[in-house]
C-alpha cells in the first residue's frame, strides 16, 4: 500500500512537472500579471497545499501568468520571496503562517509587489492576510456527525495544535451541540500534519471508544483517519477534495475547505484594486467552505437540516464562539 502510494505520488509529481512545463511553453503575448505561490508543503497533499495550487490555477484562468514552488523551508522562504519579486512577479501568495516573519522582512523592499499570506495576521502597505473560517468547517462536520451517529459518540482528529485546527475543533463541538446537545464529542490532536500513522492510530483508539462518525482535520495525515474509518467500517466525513477515494465505503461526504477560492477572491480584489488594510475572513459566505455531493445514502431530513445550517452560516446567522 505504501509503495503504491509512493508510486502514485511519483506519477502525480511527474504529471505536475509536465503540466508546468506546458504552461510555461504556452506564453501569451498580451500583458498579464505574474502571480506566484510559495508552498510550505507538497502540492500533492490533497489538502492545504493542493487547494493552494488549485487557487493558483484559478488565477491563471483569470489571465495571470503563474508559477509556484513547493516544500519551501523557512530558511529558504526569504530567498524564494526575493527570487519571485526580482523576477517581476506582481502578486506573491504564501500558503501559510510560517512565512510571516520572512514576508515582514522582505515586503518593504518590494513596494510594487502585493503579498498575500493565508492564515496570518500580518497586514502592511503591500501585505494582506487571508483567514479561513475553519470553525465553520468544523461546525458542519460536528452537525452532520451528530445527525448521523447511532452510538451517540462522534470524533474529531486534529493535526497540529494550531489556531485553524483548534478553531475547527471548537466549531465541531458547537456544531454537534447545535443539532443534538446529548451527543458526546471526542476531540484529539495528533500534533502533526504529516504523520499518517499517528493519525490512524489515534482514530482507531477513538473508534474503540465508541466513535462511529469521525472527521479529520489534519492536512496530509487526514488520510490515516480515513483509512482507519474504512478498515473499521464506520462513517467518516472527509476534510478535503478527493479523500473519498481513500475510504470509498466510509465517506459520507467531503466538507471541503477550498482555499483555492480564497486565492481567487484575493486575486480578484487585487485586479479590481480594492484591497483594504483589513484581514480577509472567508468561509461559507465566499464558498471557501462547501459540501460535496453525498456519497452515502442520507435521510432527506438530514440533508435538509444541513442545507439549512449552510444557509444560516452563509448569512451569518450562526455565531461560532472561538474564544
Amino acid at each position, binding site marked *: 500500500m505504501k509503495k503504491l502510494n509512493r508510486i502514485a505520488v511519483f506519477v502525480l509529481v511527474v504529471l505536475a512537472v509536465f503540466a508546468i512545463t506546458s504552461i510555461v511553453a504556452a506564453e501569451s503575448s498580451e500583458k498579464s500579471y505574474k502571480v506566484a505561490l510559495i508552498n510550505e508543503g507538497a502540492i500533492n497533499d490533497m489538502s492545504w497545499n493542493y487547494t493552494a495550487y488549485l487557487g493558483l490555477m484559478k488565477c491563471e484562468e483569470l489571465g495571470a501568468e503563474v508559477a509556484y*514552488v513547493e*516544500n519551501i523551508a523557512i*530558511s*529558504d522562504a526569504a530567498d524564494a520571496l526575493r527570487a519571485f519579486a526580482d523576477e517581476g512577479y506582481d502578486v506573491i501568495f504564501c500558503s501559510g503562517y510560517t512565512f510571516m516573519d520572512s514576508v515582514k522582512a522582505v515586503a518593504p523592499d518590494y513596494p510594487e509587489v502585493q503579498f498575500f499570506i493565508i492564515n496570518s495576521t500580518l497586514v502592511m502597505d503591500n501585505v494582506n492576510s487571508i483567514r479561513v473560517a475553519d470553525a465553520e468547517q468544523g461546525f458542519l462536520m460536528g452537525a452532520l456527525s451528530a445527525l448521523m451517529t447511532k452510538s451517540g459518540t462522534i470524533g474529531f482528529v486534529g493535526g497540529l*495544535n494550531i489556531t485553524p485546527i*483548534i478553531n475547527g475543533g471548537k466549531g465541531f463541538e458547537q456544531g454537534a451541540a447545535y443539532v443534538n446537545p446529548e451527543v458526546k464529542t471526542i476531540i484529539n490532536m495528533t500534533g502533526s500534519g504529516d504523520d499518517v500513522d499517528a493519525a490512524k492510530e489515534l482514530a482507531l483508539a477513538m473508534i474503540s471508544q465508541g466513535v462511529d462518525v469521525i472527521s479529520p482535520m489534519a492536512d496530509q495525515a487526514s488520510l490515516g483517519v480515513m483509512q482507519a474509518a474504512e478498515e473499521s467500517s464506520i462513517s467518516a466525513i472527509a476534510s478535503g477534495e478527493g479523500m473519498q477515494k481513500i475510504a470509498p465505503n466510509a465517506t459520507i461526504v467531503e466538507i471541503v475547505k477550498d482555499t483555492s477560492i480564497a486565492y481567487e477572491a484575493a486575486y480578484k480584489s487585487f485586479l479590481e484594486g480594492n484591497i483594504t488594510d483589513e484581514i480577509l475572513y472567508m468561509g461559507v459566505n465566499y464558498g471557501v467552505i462547501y459540501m460535496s455531493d453525498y456519497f452515502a445514502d442520507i435521510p432527506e431530513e438530514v440533508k435538509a437540516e444541513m442545507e439549512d445550517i449552510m444557509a444560516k452560516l452563509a448569512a451569518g446567522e450562526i455565531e461560532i464562539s472561538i474564544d
Partner: protein
Amino acid sequence: MRKSNSIIEKYKLGGLFYPILAILAAFIAGSILILLISTKNPIDVYSVLIKSAFGSLKSWDSSLVKAIPFIFTGLSFAAAKRCGIVNLGADGQFMIGALGGALIGIRLNGLPIYLHLPLTLIAGFLFGAIFGMIVALLKIKFGASELITSIMLNYIAANIIGWALTGPMQEKSAVLVNPQTELIPPSASIGRLFPATKFTLHYGIFIAIIALIFFYILIWRSSVGYQLRVVGINPSAGEYAGINKNRMILLSMFIAGGFAGLGGCIEIIAVQGRLMNTSFSIQYGFTGIAVALVGNNTPLGILLSGIFFGGLQAGALRMQILTGISSSMSQVIQAFVILFFTGRDMFRIKKA
C-alpha cells in the same frame, strides 16, 4: 578496501578526483532524469542551477548562508568517523542544539549581548553534545550499534521539538496559536555582516571557520586527537597501546554532537529568527553526511563540499522558479553524488 593501481593515484590526484568525478556522474545521471520527466534541456537547467548557486555575489551570499549548517553537520559526522563511529544522528543533535539555543536565547532575555550571545552558543553546543553522548553511552554500556541508536534518536529529537513547541516553549503572546517560539531577542542573535544590504551572510560563517580550524588542531595536532584516530583506525591496537577506547568514543560523540548542536543553534539565531515546527524541513544532518563523505572527513574538504551542497540548496530554489524543474531535482543530484562517491570503486581503472 581492495588495493588498486589506478592511474589517478599514480598522479596523486586522489583527493580531488573522486569527489569531482562523482559530482559529474551525478549531473549526467540527473540529466537523463530531466530528459525523461520534462521537455527541458538539461544543460539549460544546470546552467540556471549553477548560475543561481555561484553566478553572482548575491548567489554566493545565499550559498554560503546555506553552507554554514552543512559545514557543522559535516563536521559532526567527520568528528565521529575519525574515531570509528558512524554518527547518523546529526539531524537530532542539530535540532536539540537549536532547542538549547532557543531556550537560553528566549528565557535569559535581558542580559547584555556580550554575555547572552556566548551563553546561547554554548547552550547550543552543550545540548547537542549531551544528546550526542547518549549514542556513545549506549554503545559503551550495552554495545548498542550507533547506526541504530543515532538514527532512532533523531525521531526522539523531533518529538521533543514537537512537544516543546506545543507546550512549554510555545509563543505566548501571539494572536494566532502556532507551534513556534517567540522571536529570539537581538542580544542572543547573530547579526549580518552587511546589515543594510540585501546580503544575508552572517557572522556565523566565522564560527564555522573557527570550528573547522578547531577540528583540524584537535584531530591532527593534539595527542587526544592522535588517540582518537588510533581508536578509529584500529580499536584493539589502541587499547593495546593503553588508550582508553571508551573515553575516546565518548569524547568523539561529545564533539560530534556539539558541532551539530552549534550548527542548529546558529541556524536559529542567525537565519530563522525563531524555532518553528517547520524549522528542520531541510534534513541538515543527512546532508551533512554527504558533505563529510565528499569532503573526505577533512576540514578543507568539508568546507568545499559544504559550500557545494549549500550552493545546490540555494540554486535549487531559483532553478525551480526559473525552469519549473522541481527543487527536489537538486536532492536527487545530491543523492546521486553520494551514490557515485560511495560506489567510487567502480571508477577505478584496473591494470591488466
